[in-house]
């Protein structure tokens, strides 16, 4: 028995139905504990003051935003090669979580940046890359919405995800080059601390765990939704035909 048995929608629904409640509870606990801990029980940073507390949302959401896209890339490839519907539906489900996480990362980045740099937005390479990632997510979701036939939509969005990933990586280098060229040295990476001291590190780890679990739960639930919608459509078509 391998992982591929869960490509079977019925088996997937069965297994995911069993593990989602547990994962949801774990996720909620991690999030509540880590955010409470980080917000109320950690000191201020000597350079950044209380804004360091934003790290407990900014970093985890950014991590999920990027990894959600990476997961979409893998599941899209699996769909194109092995034609497992569960795979591409999981990709679609993940995109909704990913786009919101990207937005959260952008917003928290802006609020963090405003007191630090005196401006709501800076064309910092990292923030700019996230803005581009946001656009890619929007395009992927819009393409799914714009095509009627589900299998055609699945194929087209999967190709878009793959081509988009290549261009996203290319953009990352291009944006680094673009900003570097303007002002060397003023690289303001909020989330690349040389060493995040322990007192911040542990609640941060827990927050990351909570966000990752949240992503998994929401994507599993979303995939279940997509599977059910697909089955409903099939039944409807069959009863009419």
């Amino acid at each position: 028995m391998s992982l591929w048995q869960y490509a079977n929608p019925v088996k997937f629904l069965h297994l995911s139905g069993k593990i989602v409640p547990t994962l949801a509870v774990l996720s909620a606990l991690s999030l509540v504990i880590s955010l409470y801990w980080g917000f109320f029980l950690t000191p201020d940073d000597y350079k950044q003051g209380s804004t360091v507390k934003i790290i407990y949302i900014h970093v985890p959401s950014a991590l999920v935003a990027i990894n959600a896209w990476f997961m979409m890339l893998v599941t899209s490839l699996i769909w194109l090669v092995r034609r497992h519907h569960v795979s591409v539906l999981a990709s679609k489900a993940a995109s909704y979580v990913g786009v919101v996480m990207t937005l959260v990362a952008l917003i928290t980045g802006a609020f963090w940046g405003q007191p630090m740099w005196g401006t709501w937005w800076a064309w910092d390479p990292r923030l700019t890359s996230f803005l581009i990632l946001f656009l890619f997510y929007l395009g992927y979701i819009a393409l799914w919405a714009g095509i009627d036939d589900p299998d055609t939509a699945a194929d087209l969005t999967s190709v878009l995800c793959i081509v988009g990933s290549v261009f996203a990586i290319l953009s990352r280098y291009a944006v680094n080059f673009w900003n570097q060229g303007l002002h060397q040295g003023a690289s303001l990476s909020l989330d690349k601390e040389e060493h995040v001291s322990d007192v911040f590190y542990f609640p941060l780890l827990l927050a990351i765990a909570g966000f990752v679990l949240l992503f998994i739960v929401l994507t599993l639930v979303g995939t279940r939704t997509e599977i059910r919608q697909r089955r409903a459509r099939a039944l409807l078509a069959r009863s009419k035909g």
Partner: protein
Amino acid sequence: MPDLGKYAFAVLSSYGYSLALIIGLVVFVVLRNIKARKALEAIEAEVNHGKD
């Protein structure tokens, strides 16, 4: 509430917007799921009825 000092607006806004977005996302995903489940159950019931 810890003393957030002059950064209170930034920190509270970040947390506020983020939590709002995340809760919105959870509500969206859960509601869609419930809707899909109900719709499927309704169609399956109809199809099964038709078989009787």
